[in-house]
């Protein structure tokens, strides 16, 4: 299995390679990738340097161009595809049908992966992308159980599958969520952002800290309670039946214990979320997962990575990989 690590900056990129990433994924500055945050991502020159750095050390580079192009502005996405191919990207991670079509027609030799944003959640969906665009790998949405991942992987071979094993967790099917744009006007699909920082505000209300997104209160924290970022689906809300984290508790995905099962399932790529995270995070997580993966391949018991302190809300879940999550 291949360990695929995030990099939001050239420094984090080098850290990921040095810490043992088999592959690193990253994107260009601007709206062409789904982590379009201020101060993040790569210029064309930085991407070329990063790819050279990785290739010199035996690591691969996957370039994410995985938002859905604005109507009338496809050129921007086409240029990103052309540039990534010219820079020597080992694969492009794409979501939009038109971008996949452009890449497949213009660069038939280029290896293409289907982004998690494309929501390929069953074998027919994967075959759709394989037959139409010759994709070689699909990143599966975080809505599937391990048994379902195994079944899809068997059904779509030789197309490879890749799954997330650590980091932030979408509870909604990725690429199909407009919660953020309902509250702020900006969405992952159109703008590459979810619950963007420019629309976040914190307000002290007596002893209570209130976090808001757009015009809506997303959470309230008592004195001393750790206050998380107001990602919309991780907020506390009120319903007639219960108040609280009605969509998902403030937890991060940690599937380290499931690595053997994912290996048996035939999964090729293990992906760590977090292009927005700093070098220290990337270094620790990559090193721990690489050690776990090496142990697994050598038939040694996997030592729990012990990454709890790095996770959002400092508690973890195996998410949809366990069927009871539903």
């Amino acid at each position, binding site marked *: 299995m291949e360990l695929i690590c995030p990099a939001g900056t050239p420094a984090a990129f080098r850290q990921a390679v040095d810490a043992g990433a088999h592959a690193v994924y990253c994107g260009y500055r601007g709206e062409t990738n789904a982590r379009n945050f201020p101060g993040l991502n790569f210029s064309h020159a930085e991407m070329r340097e990063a790819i050279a750095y990785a290739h010199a050390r035996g690591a691969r580079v996957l370039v994410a161009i995985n938002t859905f192009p604005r109507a009338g502005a496809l050129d921007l996405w086409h240029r990103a595809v052309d540039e990534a191919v010219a820079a020597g990207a080992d694969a492009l991670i794409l979501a939009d049908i038109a971008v996949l079509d452009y890449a497949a027609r213009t660069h038939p030799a280029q290896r293409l992966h289907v982004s998690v944003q494309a929501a390929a959640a069953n074998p027919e969906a994967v075959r759709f992308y394989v037959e139409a665009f010759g994709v070689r790998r699909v990143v599966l949405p975080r809505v599937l159980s391990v048994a379902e991942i195994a079944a899809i992987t068997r059904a779509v071979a030789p197309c490879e599958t890749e799954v997330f094993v650590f980091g932030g967790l979408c509870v909604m099917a990725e690429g199909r969520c407009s919660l953020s744009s309902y509250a702020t006007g900006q969405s992952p699909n159109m703008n590459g952002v979810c619950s963007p920082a420019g629309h976040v505000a914190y307000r002290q209300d007596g002893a209570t800290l209130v976090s808001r997104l*757009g015009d809506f209160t997303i959470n309230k924290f008592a004195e001393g309670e750790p206050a998380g970022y107001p990602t919309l689906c991780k907020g506390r809300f009120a319903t007639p039946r219960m108040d609280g984290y009605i969509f998902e508790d403030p937890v991060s995905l940690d599937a380290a214990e499931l690595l053997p099962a994912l290996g048996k399932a035939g999964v090729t790529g293990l992906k760590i979320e977090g292009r927005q995270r700093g070098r220290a995070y990337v270094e620790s997580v990559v090193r721990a997962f690489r050690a776990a993966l090496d142990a697994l391949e050598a038939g040694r018991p996997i030592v729990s990575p012990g990454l709890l302190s790095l996770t959002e809300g400092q508690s973890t879940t195996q998410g949809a990989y366990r069927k009871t999550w539903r």
Partner: protein
Amino acid sequence: MRLTLGPVLFNWAPEAWRDFHFRIADEAPVDRVIIGEVVCSKRSPFFADHLPEVAERLAAAGKEVVFASLALVTLERERRAIAELAADDAILMEANDVSTLRVLAGRPHLIGPFVNVYNEATAQWLAARGARAICLPPELPGTSIAAIAASGGVPLEVFAFGRVPLAISARCYHARVHGLHKDNCRFVCDQDPDGMGVETLDHEPFLAVNGLQTLSHRCASLIGDIPALRGMGVASLRLSPQHCDMVAVAQVFRDVADGRMEVAAGRAALAGLFPLAPFSNGFLHGRAGVAQVGTA
């Protein structure tokens, strides 16, 4: 401007679902009606027996009848159900995910609002594979709608009335707030025919939960935007069923579109027909979806 009645997104009692469509067939001035379960396949068996008679009644009334596919397809039985529907050449389907697109490739079909069509190149690609009409994702701004329409090739529909579908998940939030899991959900979503209200901790209405689906609290209404939509080249408006008099809702849209009713009167009429939530049209105007732009 044509009118389409979208699929019922909520878990209504089977007889109520049937009678609702019978009345639509007999009385509603809509050109096309989409039927079938989009949100949760566990609900499908309940009204499956009524599907043929509803389809027949709608067709006899001159409506174009379209069968919707599920938005999130993961289970074997869901895949089988779609394959069986698609195998029947007499049935026109609306694809709501890419796996259904594959099954329908090369045959006439419609594209539902749950397939990501954000630009003209994707719309044209789909049209070349047999898409006869595309209902665009509700979050698309008017600038994008106009650009896609300008490229031609396929009639476009926009989501013009109803709580806006915002997300779909493998997890059932209805079950979760009732302390249940999806597998033993007891179909508690049937208690909320317009979705279950979700408020902020300040008790400001925000969202609505419908099983695996999350919708807006506010009800989309583009009643004041019809001339603009026509100018963009939009061919039809989708009215998404809420638990209210949808025949009357359709008549208001028909009358305003045809110039028989002033926008202000139409807006007041809709507010009376669906008093549960205020209206919004922010997505169309490139703003937050919750926003209401213009008073008309």
